[in-house]
């Protein structure tokens, strides 16, 4: 019986049910789209994972991999029949007649066996022809190279000099399955023969070489096999990559983007929740008479509660289904749009996981939000039905705030799930709820002022202000949803602008023009002389090592998948080698946070253990604190040191810096190369300098920082558009909530409006009154939203980025105008039907 009554409640209250269901649908849309995008993207990565790596497993290291350990790995992990292809990669400069640029060399060393090929999976397409893999292949001829198209666009198609040799361009790589997803790569690939690389003098002491062994396994590799392999290799400078890890690495940027998009979609969900809360509260208030009638004919309080619980379960269920149906219509369109923006095509798939998440959130969220309202409504004292005059007036349901705790916990869980980070999810939720809680008293305060301002004012202004105060909950709900939508719309572009301002090269900018590396120890003096007119910035030694122990505990390679982004970052940092340097003073891009500056060069009597300076975020990731003892292995030689200070580094200065720095006098004799930056200069000057540098120092690699910045800005722009699109979705949800609440309120005020008509108020005057109310809310909400957007961008810039905060008035002014105009039209639309009701209906 209760289910039947609940169904009837839904069927026979059509306008409430429709508004409620559409609110649920709109709230879920963003969330399902983002979840589906994550799954689609992961599907593409998983499907191409093997092609991305080109092998079943790979070993890589900055040092040549120990032959015995490699044999053991092959024997125990991949099988005796495995095939191995060795590859070396390194950065180098390539020069043509007109210019030079940084390139990424891949040197192929293949044996006689036809099975030794590269890659084992995926393909390399040269001049439009699939070359790899096939049984009989040819490396580039001796003295020739295969290049990426970007090389020819800058250096031309003529011969290019790499190292001490000149090479002809034998082929242009038109497709490389390993390149498909890389965003922001600054050095295009060049493939060459291994022996050519040796002959060109590219393999030198200190060169930035990475040694790879790509393995096609004869056995199936399990997780346990990999763990065994890690123990056999026993060197955290050697990276063992599987197709899965490789694809995760490649997809990292987009993974972060989808995390943030997920958070923004939660804002849309929250705004829809505001609308749902208001709608259901009003619905239950109007049902008080029904509650009393049910009670009078013998339905117990428990059963009345049960009836409305069933009612809300059904609403959540149907609303979720509607949300999923709408998502399935929108997904193909979104995927098509994303295919233009991303460098690959997304499959049009309806992810069961995304749909399940949407369904779960829709049902659980609606239930948790509404059950406190039902509890409060059914707890009310039975209304007296024995009244002599008129019907029972709707009495507002007041709810104990503690009952919303489950909803808050649920929402917090969603924020952490969406962002894959406890820190980011909690901060987002904290900021967001903080703004929401701050806004409410502000809104009430504004209502008070509005009430006072209406005294002595014209009739329609007075009535507008009175209605705003009379329907406070509706006013606050609309205010909050518009405020949060506006805040987001201002926050995203302002954050983007601040970060962009920090890294953009401008006339007044101090960013260097070039970043130099692979500088040999014996070249330093000569290089200083070369740059005597424009002295190098941040000339720093660069020593490779790895952390072997922290406070006498061995640093072990993690093979388990980390749950959060923080966990993944920590694993990456634990599982790789470390770059070390030494310096006694801080540079202009560093700030001391804890501890003391180095007292000078190492003195055993004074200092005890060699002193180390650590970058603060690196320290947090690895759980290292002031005073901790760190043991390093530098080319097999152990070195113990102690953390004496923690510093903050402004990485966007592009001045060489390191996570770990020793004081001088410790690593001075260690094998090393050097890094430096070249101060800013004009574009033509850079090219001339780069060419001259190559002639004198062909082994030194130079990164054009403006190119790096441009790549980063391009990526940020793409990500920014996605975030802005999602913010617009949030604002749209905000407007939908506005429309729902406005319609609902208009309906509730229908007889009032008709009465005003009866006593002589014209339709135009009534419309002005309504529009003024909603435009008033819209103006103040968007004004405050813009203000909060500016404030939150300031806080976030300083909490998560080291960037300079920059304010722009375009978005705040623009958003206020847009919101006011849209409020005008929404109010007009919501009131149209009600205003058409004839005054004569009052008399029937």
């Amino acid at each position: 019986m209760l289910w039947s009554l609940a169904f009837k409640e839904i069927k026979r209250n059509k306008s409430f049910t429709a508004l409620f269901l559409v609110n649920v649908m709109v709230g879920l849309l963003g969330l399902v789209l983002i979840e589906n995008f994550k799954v689609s993207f992961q599907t593409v990565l998983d499907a191409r994972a093997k092609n991305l790596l080109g092998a079943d497993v790979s070993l890589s290291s900055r040092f040549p991999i120990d032959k015995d350990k490699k044999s053991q790995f092959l024997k125990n992990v991949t099988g005796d029949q495995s095939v191995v292809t060795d590859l070396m990669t390194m950065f180098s400069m390539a020069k043509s007649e007109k210019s030079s640029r940084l390139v990424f060399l891949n040197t192929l060393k293949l044996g006689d066996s036809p099975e030794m090929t590269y890659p084992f999976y995926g393909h390399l397409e040269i001049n439009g022809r699939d070359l790899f893999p096939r049984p009989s292949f040819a490396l580039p001829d001796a003295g020739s190279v295969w290049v990426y198209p970007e090389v020819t666009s800058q250096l031309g198609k003529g011969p290019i000099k790499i190292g001490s040799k000149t090479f002809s361009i034998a082929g242009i790589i038109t497709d490389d399955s390993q390149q498909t997803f890389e965003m922001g790569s600054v050095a295009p690939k060049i493939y060459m023969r291994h022996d050519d690389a040796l002959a060109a003098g590219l393999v030198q002491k200190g060169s930035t070489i990475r040694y790879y062994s790509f393995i096609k396994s004869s056995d199936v590799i399990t997780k346990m096999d990999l763990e065994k392999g890690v123990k056999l290799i026993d060197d955290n400078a050697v990276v063992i990559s599987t197709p899965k890890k490789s694809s995760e690495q490649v997809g990292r940027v987009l993974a972060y983007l989808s995390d943030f998009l997920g958070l923004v979609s939660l804002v849309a969900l929250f705004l829809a929740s505001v609308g749902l809360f208001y709608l259901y509260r009003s619905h239950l208030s109007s049902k008080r008479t029904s509650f009393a009638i049910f009670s009078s004919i013998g339905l117990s309080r428990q059963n009345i509660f049960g009836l409305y619980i069933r009612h809300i379960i059904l609403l959540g269920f149907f609303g979720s289904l509607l949300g999923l149906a709408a998502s399935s219509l929108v997904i193909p369109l979104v995927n098509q749009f994303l295919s233009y923006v991303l460098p690959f095509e997304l499959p049009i798939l309806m992810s069961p996981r995304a749909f399940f998440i949407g369904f779960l959130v829709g049902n659980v969220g609606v239930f948790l939000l509404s059950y406190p309202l039902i509890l409060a409504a059914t707890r009310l004292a039975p209304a007296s039905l024995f009244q002599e005059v008129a019907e029972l007036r709707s009495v507002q349901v007041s709810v104990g705030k503690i009952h919303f705790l489950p909803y808050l916990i649920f929402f917090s869980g969603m924020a952490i799930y969406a962002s894959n980070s406890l820190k980011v999810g909690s901060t987002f939720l904290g900021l967001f709820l903080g703004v929401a809680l701050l806004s409410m008293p502000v809104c009430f305060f504004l209502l008070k002022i509005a009430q006072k301002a209406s005294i002595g004012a014209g009739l329609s202004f007075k009535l507008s202000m009175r209605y705003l105060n009379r329907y406070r909950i509706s006013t606050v709900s609309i205010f909050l949803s518009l405020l949060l939508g506006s805040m987001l719309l201002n926050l995203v572009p302002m954050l983007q602008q601040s970060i962009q301002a920090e890294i953009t090269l401008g006339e007044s900018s101090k960013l260097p023009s070039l970043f130099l590396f692979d500088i040999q120890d014996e070249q330093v003096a000569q290089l200083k002389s070369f740059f005597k007119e424009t002295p190098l910035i941040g000339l720093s030694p660069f020593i490779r090592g790895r952390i072997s122990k922290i406070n006498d505990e061995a640093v072990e390679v993690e093979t388990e998948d980390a749950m959060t982004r923080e966990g993944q970052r920590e694993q990456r940092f634990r599982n790789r080698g470390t770059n070390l340097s030494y310096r006694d003073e801080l540079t202009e891009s560093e700030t001391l946070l804890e501890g003391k500056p180095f007292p000078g060069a190492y003195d055993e009597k004074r200092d005890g253990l060699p002193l180390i300076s650590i970058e603060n975020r690196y320290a947090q990731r690895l759980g290292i604190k002031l005073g901790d003892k760190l043991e390093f292995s530098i080319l097999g030689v152990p070195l113990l040191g102690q953390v004496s200070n923690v510093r903050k580094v402004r990485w966007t200065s592009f001045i060489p810096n390191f996570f770990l720095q020793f004081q001088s006098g410790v690593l001075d004799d260690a094998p090393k190369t050097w890094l430096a930056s070249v101060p800013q200069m004009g574009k033509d000057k850079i090219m001339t300098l780069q060419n001259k540098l190559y002639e004198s120092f062909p082994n030194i690699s130079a990164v054009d920082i403006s190119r790096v910045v441009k790549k980063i800005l391009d990526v940020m722009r793409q990500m920014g558009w996605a975030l802005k699109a999602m913010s617009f979705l949030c604002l749209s949800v905000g407007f939908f909530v506005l429309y729902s609440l406005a319609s609902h309120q208009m309906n509730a005020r229908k007889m009032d409006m008709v009465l005003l008509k009866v006593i002589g108020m014209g339709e135009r005057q009534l419309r002005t009154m309504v529009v003024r109310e909603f435009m008033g809310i819209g103006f103040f909400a968007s004004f405050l939203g813009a203000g909060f957007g500016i404030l939150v961008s300031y806080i976030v810039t300083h909490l998560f980025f080291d960037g300079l905060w920059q304010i722009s008035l375009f978005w705040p002014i623009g958003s206020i105008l847009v919101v006011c105009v849209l409020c005008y039209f929404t109010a007009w639309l919501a009131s149209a039907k009600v205003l058409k009701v004839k005054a004569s209906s009052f008399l029937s």
Partner: protein
Amino acid sequence: MLKIQNLKKSFIQGEREIQVLKGLNLEIKAGETAAILGTSGSGKSTLLSLLAGIDTSNAGDMSFQGVSLNKLSEEERTKLRGEKIGIIFQQFHLIPHLNALENVSLPLEILGRPYQKESVKALEDVGLGHRLDHFPGQLSGGEKQRVAIARAMVMEPELLLADEPSGSLDEETGEQVMKLIFSLVEKKGTSLILVTHDEELARRCSSVHRLQNGCLDLEVEAQ
């Protein structure tokens, strides 16, 4: 069937305690029709709430078929009300989104009893057999009150409470409604307590009581 002894009920309004019923006594036999006369504000609504088990008294005893209502829990009173007491309100109080048949079926559905045929018959008894699927919004005042009567009588209650049932109707319709009520209670042997301010209507009952100063004075005794 119904016995009330020294019933007292007061309400707190601000800092004051307002005594509404000050020691009320009443006895109704099975099949008796009793009218309670009283002016506006005399405590009629309060008395009806107590009689219906919707509210509880501060003092005194009220027993229905030998069961003391004050000793029952809210749930027990609700159950008792659903089984044995029918209520007709001045404002009809039909569920707006249920049609006539569904409104009338409700008490039987709540009790878990068969309701289809019984509800149809109840509506036919009140002359609305042709308006089964009409909603309250589609019915006139008199028709709505007849649906409310059918709903109150469908589970064949022992006691019918009627709170100014013709109060919201015009004279002619009101008269029709009252005729219907009296004929139904006579036919089914239901006791009736009719609350009204209409002296003439009150005289149609077998006993008449006047509620004033928080107490009931018997004016006409049942034969």
